[in-house]
């Protein structure tokens, strides 16, 4: 695939979709400010209520959703590449649950949502990632892709149940994190983003560093060694990047499943299997998917909002079924 095809088949369509959902995210909501009033704010006019709603509520949640989408899309693509498994996804494998559990644990021990930094979530994601990959023995090349997902589902279930127990036992923690544990970008402001930005940027930097060698690992470890790469080190760097990205995303928006599955799946359909191309497209499609889910979450239960985590699951679960039922899983 040449650079030209990557641009025309991937970057342009994905960029157009992202632009559309960004406008939709600014224009629509569960409240009284409709598209007409919101769009007039965007062109410089609008009444005071509309201006407040757009600039103080919708712009911050849109920006946070973009950051979360980039993090989860890239994390999914990296995880799938490292585990050579098209079903590997931070939500399904329990990394998001691990990050959430770590945050809840620290809050139950006396912290508050405002003071728990993203590093807690990063550590939680990293530990969960190591546990699930060890459980499914990721290096065995003949491994059944579904087995890793089963190990992840077990870990997710365990962590989710333990998180629930912590919340049941401790009313204060429950009040602090109730909305957060189901996943949301509503009510997030730009200070949320500032808090997780270092982890996010570090994760992205590591992803860029590892991308070329990861692409070579797709040809098998022996070929990659022959080309001068060090597979173990590359996998370690990529997993570290995944932990930073999932930690940042979970700290900002709570655990969101399926985004890391849907986004790389769509990106590969557009530009093929080369991880370097996939990662580029994921930085556009990730935000598009999270924003789309967020917009839907505002519209389906008006005047209330549905939880974002519920909507990503509703979008993602059919894609999971689709991938598993495909005549054969794509080899990565």
């Amino acid at each position, binding site marked *: *695939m040449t650079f030209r095809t990557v641009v025309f088949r991937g970057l342009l369509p994905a960029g157009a979709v992202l632009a559309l959902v960004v406008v939709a995210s600014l224009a629509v909501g569960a409240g009284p400010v409709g598209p007409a009033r919101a769009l007039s704010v965007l062109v410089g006019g609008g009444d005071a209520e509309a201006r407040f709603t757009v600039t103080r509520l919708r712009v911050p949640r849109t920006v946070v959703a973009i950051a979360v989408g980039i993090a989860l899309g890239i994390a999914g693509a990296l995880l799938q590449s490292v585990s050579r498994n098209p079903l590997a996804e931070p939500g399904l494998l329990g990394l998001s649950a691990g990050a959430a559990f770590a945050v809840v644990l620290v809050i139950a021990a006396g912290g508050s949502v405002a003071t728990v930094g993203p590093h807690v979530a990063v550590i939680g994601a990293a530990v969960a990632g190591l546990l699930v990959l060890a459980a499914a023995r990721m290096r065995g090349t003949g491994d059944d892709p579904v087995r890793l997902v089963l190990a992840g589902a077990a870990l997710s279930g365990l962590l989710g149940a333990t998180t629930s127990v912590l919340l049941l036992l401790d009313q204060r923690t429950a009040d602090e994190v109730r909305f957060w544990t189901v996943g949301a970008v509503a009510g997030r402001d730009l200070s949320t983003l500032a808090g997780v930005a270092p982890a996010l940027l570090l994760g992205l930097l590591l992803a860029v*560093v590892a991308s*070329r060698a990861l*692409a*070579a690992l*797709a*040809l*098998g*470890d*022996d*070929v990659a*060694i*022959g*080309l*001068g*790469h*060090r597979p173990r080190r590359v996998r370690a760097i990529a997993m570290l990047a995944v932990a930073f990205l999932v930690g940042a995303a979970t700290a900002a928006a709570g655990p969101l499943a399926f985004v890391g599955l849907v986004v790389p799946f769509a990106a590969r359909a557009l530009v*093929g*299997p*080369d991880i370097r191309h996939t990662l580029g497209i994921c930085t556009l499609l990730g935000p598009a998917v999270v924003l789309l889910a967020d917009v839907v979450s505002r519209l389906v239960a008006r005047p209330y909002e549905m939880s974002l985590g519920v909507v990503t699951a509703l979008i993602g679960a059919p894609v999971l079924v689709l991938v598993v039922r495909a005549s054969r899983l*794509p*080899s*990565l």
Partner: protein
Amino acid sequence: MTVLQTRSLTLAHARTPVIDGLDLDLPAGQVTVIIGPNGCGKSTLLSGLARVLAPRGGSVLLDGCALATMPTREVARRVGLLPQSAVAPDGLTVRDLVRYGRHPHQGLLRQWSRADAEAVDAALAAAGVEDLAERPLDTLSGGQRQRAWIAMVVAQDTPVVLLDEPTSALDLGHQIEVLDLVRSLAARGRTVVLVLHDLSSACRVADHLVALVDGQVVAAGAPGAVVNPGLVRRLYGVESVVVPDPTHGTPVVCPVGLAARTG
């Protein structure tokens, strides 16, 4: 002259040594073929030569320098490897694959260059796959696909090339296609080491033959000098008549039957 040597090389999978204390010299600029029965350690030896498998003892020397002490990227600029039955992700085109061969010459700060593009074009031409450059690998025949993989190793532009059973699972025409390509690499001054199963094609392509049994060299030299019924019996337990190939003069092994087992 030799570029690649082993000295007391011991290679092991898990705890079992497969190669134990092997001394071997691989002549520069020639085609060396490693032959031997199943499980004799041919592929293990090649993995050791390519530093995919670290030595348990002894060393592999490249121009007199121990491979294990060199940076892996430096080795990759001097030794190219095509492992057995390598697989590529779905949808990867021939040109995409061959471009990977340039990885050892690139880095974070030294990205794709004109020299890389020229090396890729030259490799595509040398392997005779320039017409297939934009085709996905999974749409090619076995022989075409194997030539595409060899083109990747050619693009790596290394003085030493290691190929593990490049003709396995190929029909006769495709085998000759690949072996001719191997000969042309040596004709351009590269040192080629390959593992082959078929004795007659080994004799045809090799300048230098190395026969392994249980990780030990039992014969080494020009095919015409080392291949005889005694060697065939020792390697495979097969009685045979060895005759010269009517056109090339290289030895051809005509099996008669299994040798009587003695002790």
